[in-house]
């Protein structure tokens, strides 16, 4: 059951489309001469960066050692600009900042290679022709744009977390999050995402056994990557030290609580409560219901789960309800809920898992 919400968690916040910038902040008046000089400078820099856009090779690690100011941060903000289609944002980020080749990205997202190549060409052309700026957005745009960048990195991770697991995508997302954390050390949510991905990635090899999803409490903990968990804790500490709470940090806190000797369900339930305040969504409510069930009993959890609106077509709601009903001894209702989850489950791995649960009920 724990993995029901772990999986639910993975799908969040895919829907977190950035809101309209909204408030216009009055630009300071500049005289035309300064304006023109700046434009020329920008253009020169842009031309240089665009030349880099054509380079197929990933940024060389030599940059990190020489301390040459690198423009990868500006590049990632351009790649994740909301004027690009979401799938183009992901492909572009992976191709320009990740270590994956076009065929590898195409395989990972199950897209024909020419389609992906065309998507990349079109996106690069839009960056150039529409004047998408290669820069770190100014303060009044930063929160919204950073959300878009973090969402892309998280999406890459989720695409790899499966099932089926595609480890190279997870590793790439962790690497991108680490890069962002290095480049934007003052952004708490960047460290929060980095920590979250480290915790989740640490459990990657234990999540699927013989092609079947393994519940968190049934996972072989010796398969967890202790180094990554330790790194996750450090990243989370860095995030919390900045004292600017946010959804990724809360999720990382939850993941940290799961990485202890035994999951601390009371703390997890509290963290989901905060998350529901900060970033309300029915999926978060579902996770909260499961955590409450684990800390306060299935009845309390079911009460919360039955109050959730708008998730009727979400298989994890039904599989979580089924588990709660089973624990309350209401086997017939549990079986009906498993059947419903089975109808909605997105892949064979999940269906196999649910069939296993259903047959264990013996109905």
């Amino acid at each position, binding site marked *: 059951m724990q993995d029901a919400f772990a999986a639910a968690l993975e799908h969040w916040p895919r829907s977190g489309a950035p809101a309209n910038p909204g408030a216009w902040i009055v630009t300071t008046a500049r005289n035309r001469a300064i304006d023109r000089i700046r434009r020329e400078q920008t253009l020169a820099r842009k031309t240089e960066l665009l030349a880099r856009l054509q380079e197929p090779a990933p940024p060389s690690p030599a940059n990190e050692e020489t301390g040459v100011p690198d423009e990868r941060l500006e590049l990632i903000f351009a790649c994740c600009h909301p004027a690009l289609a979401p799938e183009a944002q992901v492909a572009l980020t992976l191709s320009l900042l990740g270590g994956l080749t076009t065929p590898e990205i195409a395989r990972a997202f199950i897209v024909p290679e020419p389609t992906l190549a065309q998507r990349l060409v079109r996106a690069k052309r839009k960056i150039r022709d*529409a004047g998408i700026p290669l820069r770190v957005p100014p303060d009044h745009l930063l929160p919204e744009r950073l959300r878009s960048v973090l969402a892309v990195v998280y999406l890459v991770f989720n695409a790899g977390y499966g099932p089926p697991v595609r480890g190279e995508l997870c590793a790439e997302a962790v690497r991108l999050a680490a890069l962002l954390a290095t480049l934007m050390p003052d952004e708490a949510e960047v460290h929060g995402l980095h920590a979250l991905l480290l915790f989740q990635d640490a459990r990657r090899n234990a999540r699927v056994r013989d092609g079947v999803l393994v519940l968190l409490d049934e996972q072989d903990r010796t398969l967890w990557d202790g180094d990554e968990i330790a790194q996750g804790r450090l990243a989370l500490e860095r995030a919390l030290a900045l004292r600017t709470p946010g959804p990724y940090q809360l999720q990382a806190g939850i993941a940290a609580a799961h990485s202890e000797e035994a999951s601390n369900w009371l703390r997890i339930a509290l963290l989901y409560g905060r998350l529901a305040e900060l970033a309300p969504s029915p999926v978060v409510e579902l996770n909260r219901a499961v955590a409450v069930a684990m800390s306060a009993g299935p009845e309390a959890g079911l009460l919360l789960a039955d109050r959730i609106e708008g998730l009727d077509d979400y298989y994890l709601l039904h599989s979580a309800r089924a588990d709660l009903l089973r624990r309350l001894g209401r086997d017939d209702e549990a079986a009906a809920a498993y059947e419903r989850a089975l109808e909605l489950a997105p892949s064979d791995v999940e269906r196999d898992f649910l069939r296993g649960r259903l047959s264990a009920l013996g109905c």
Partner: protein
Amino acid sequence: MQYLLLIYSDESLWESLPDDERQAIHREYGRLNSDLHAHGKLVAGDELQPVATATSVRLRNGDTIVSDGPFAETNEALGGYYLIEADSLDEAIEWAARIPSARGGTIEIRPTVDHSGDGS
């Protein structure tokens, strides 16, 4: 760079607004116009006559085919435009967001092609 901001909105919605609201929107457009002008961003801009005045022209096999109506019939019709000077798409987006019709309608942003270096 120059960007064309195309203002699409529902004409019937505009017509249904009470006078004082229309005047408030006009004043808002006025402020936007003077800000664009003061920042040296405004190249051109106009409100268009209602879409009922639109005429479409096509040349097919040498014949000029003239028809009544816009290129595409949609609920939101092109009602006006600004041609502005902006440093980047982000700046164009910020100006576009200030156009009152962005609230109910849609502003399409199109960068123009710079031909100033051509044919010399």
